[in-house]
């Protein structure tokens, strides 16, 4: 819903929240149900309301547990049957600088101030450890915003007893914890308050009257920040940018002006603006965002723009390049198919309002930010939080490269009349083994973002995955695939649960970028072998239909499983005996870790 996208009107959201909520629920979308516990150090009523709206807009329907006013510490530290029963999927600790109990005195020495900072920090650390032990779910923690006044003026940031200095110290300690603990995320209200304007963010009236640590007007911004992290944790991030060229990546119309006359580089103010935007996109690519071109142009002409030496982005940076005269909604859907992504995983970036409207109308779930004025492009994309990062794996940095390699594979495939010959020519090597520590982050990421080649769409946190890996009740398997064009990294994940003499496959997924490479056969061979080794007589697989996983509806029949049940919703169960399973031949050289 447009009203809930950046830049939103805070006053409007607060006034119309009841109506907005109704219309979000009416639209007939399927939601991911999640239980969110808010542990507050101040009043959280409106924080909860706003968080609900933003999450609904991200496709997540939350139910809430709210701590009593300022009981965040007690609620998390001590036995709490109500919270235990609620069994949160995520915990959000909404504390602010108002919850800093002791501040250093202005005259305190560096050691004294450090000791006070450690004391405050340790109280929080105790809380986080307790939450991890009791609830073992993702925790989101606000850091601290700067204080509302500076007793020491500018020296407040310098002297050991200064308030600004103290907040910096505490935030550094929080950061350190976040860097060394999985499943723990900092919500950076310090940055948000700065963007918003600290005086507008924190107002003594709201604290004294209502015990709100921030103004009503600032709450949507805060809630949006939290919603961004939650949707990223539960796999609702966008994955790709679909980019227009003329007046989006450079100034001017290349078909009319020619490559020499478009504005890009350092020479003019407009050129500089586009240069900075291209640099921002290049950096997005480096964190794993897929770039694609969607432009109305002649292909050859369009390419000359990217061939300019002062163009930051080169043809190589794009996983897909569509410069033609088709409608852009059509191009976007074609690009999605080509890259094995869903259209809704795209953000469409175009300066032309008519094109934006067309794509918005015709491609369900795609995000289409308002791009007005090159000087605002970066801020609009950045503040929208489409690609909120919760972890960076080596794969993310290499994603663009992988798509390039895929393009080369497609070219290579075209040279073979026989697909089997082509597969052989790839010299594929797979590493298939039980979950190993170095791949946990990637495995967690895959379970949370794979939608299409995913039989049960079971979403798991990294800590749950860690538990499965250690348990003797479970058979876990990851598959990593490499070929002569490059390394695809971990691309397939499976988990089986041993129940008597049966193994039930509770999770089976594969990245779509290795479709039709025999990888699923290699995985199943090894999986069934391990089941037999564990003494299982049968392997049972399940298919739970979603809007997105129709491609694997008959997955198990490929392996000789027999359908044993089907309910009205299309959920099916399949079985094969470990003895009767016939290993498939594959063109992959298999090894363990």
């Amino acid at each position: 819903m447009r009203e809930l996208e950046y830049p939103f009107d805070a006053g409007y959201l607060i006034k119309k929240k009841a109506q907005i909520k109704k219309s979000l629920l009416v639209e007939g979308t399927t939601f991911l149900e999640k239980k969110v516990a808010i542990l507050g150090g101040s009043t959280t009523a409106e924080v909860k309301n706003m968080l609900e709206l933003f999450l609904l807009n991200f496709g997540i329907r939350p139910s809430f547990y709210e701590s009593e006013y300022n009981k965040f510490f007690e609620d998390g530290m001590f036995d709490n049957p109500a919270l235990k029963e609620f069994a949160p999927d995520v915990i959000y600790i909404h504390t602010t600088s108002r919850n800093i109990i002791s501040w250093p005195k202005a005259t305190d020495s560096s050691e004294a101030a450090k000791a006070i900072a450690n004391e405050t920090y340790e109280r929080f650390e105790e809380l986080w450890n307790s939450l991890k032990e009791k609830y073992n779910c993702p925790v989101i923690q606000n850091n601290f915003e700067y204080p509302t006044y500076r007793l020491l003026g500018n020296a407040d940031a310098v002297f050991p007893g200064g308030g600004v200095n103290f907040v910096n110290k505490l935030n550094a300690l929080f950061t350190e914890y976040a860097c060394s603990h999985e499943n723990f995320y900092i919500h950076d209200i310090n940055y948000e308050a700065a963007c918003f304007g600290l005086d507008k963010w924190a107002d003594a009236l709201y604290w004294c009257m209502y015990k709100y640590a921030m103004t009503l007007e600032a709450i949507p911004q805060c809630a949006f920040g939290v919603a961004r992290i939650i949707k990223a944790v539960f796999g609702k991030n966008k994955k790709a940018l679909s980019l227009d060229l003329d007046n989006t990546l450079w100034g001017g119309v290349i078909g009319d002006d020619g490559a020499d006359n478009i504005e890009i580089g350092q020479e003019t103010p407009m050129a500089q603006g586009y240069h900075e935007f291209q640099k921002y996109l290049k950096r997005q690519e480096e964190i794993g965002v897929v770039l694609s071109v969607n432009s109305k142009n002649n292909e050859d002409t369009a390419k000359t723009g990217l061939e300019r030496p002062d163009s930051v982005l080169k043809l190589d940076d794009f996983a897909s390049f569509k410069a033609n005269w088709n409608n852009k909604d059509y191009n976007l859907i074609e690009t999605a198919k080509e890259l094995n992504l869903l259209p809704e995983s795209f953000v469409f970036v175009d300066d032309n309002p008519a094109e934006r409207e067309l794509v918005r109308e015709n491609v369900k779930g795609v995000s289409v930010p308002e791009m007005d004025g090159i000087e605002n492009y970066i801020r609009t994309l950045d503040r929208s939080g489409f690609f909120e990062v919760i972890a960076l794996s080596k794969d993310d940095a290499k994603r663009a490269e992988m798509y390039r390699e895929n393009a080369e594979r497609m070219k290579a495939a075209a040279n073979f009349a026989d697909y089997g010959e082509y597969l052989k020519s790839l010299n594929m090597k797979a590493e298939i083994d039980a979950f190993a520590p170095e791949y946990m982050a990637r495995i967690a990421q895959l379970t949370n973002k794979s939608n299409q080649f995913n039989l049960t769409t079971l979403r798991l946190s990294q800590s749950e995955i860690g538990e499965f890996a250690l348990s003797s009740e479970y058979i876990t398997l990851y598959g990593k695939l490499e070929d002569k064009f490059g390394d695809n990294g971990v691309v397939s994940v499976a988990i089986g649960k041993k129940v008597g003499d049966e193994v039930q496959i509770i999770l089976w997924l594969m990245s779509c970028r290795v479709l039709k490479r025999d990888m699923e056969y290699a995985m199943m061979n090894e999986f069934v072998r391990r089941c037999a080794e564990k003494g299982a007589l049968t392997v049972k697989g399940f298919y739970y239909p979603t809007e997105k996983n129709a491609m694997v509806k008959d997955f198990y029949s490929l392996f000789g499983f027999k359908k044993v049940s089907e309910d009205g919703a299309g959920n099916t169960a399949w079985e094969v005996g470990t003895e009767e399973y016939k290993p498939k031949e594959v063109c992959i050289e298999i090894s363990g870790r």
Partner: protein
Amino acid sequence: MAREEIVAKLEEIFKDVFDTDDIKLEDSTTAADVDGWDSLMHITLIGVIEDEFGIKFPMKDIVGMKNVGQLIDKIAELA
């Protein structure tokens, strides 16, 4: 701003905030007369009124308001 004008605008705000079509404001109306007007909704209400009328109530005035009549007086004074 005339009182009638303020009342009309206030009724629209109340309808949005309390999500109802059934609002009639009198000078003597208090929180007890409106379904859902609790202390938390009061915060929202004041915030939305400030936003819509483009005003900012001083804290001492929010604390002192007893009924809708006094609220209207204050808005008339500030807007």
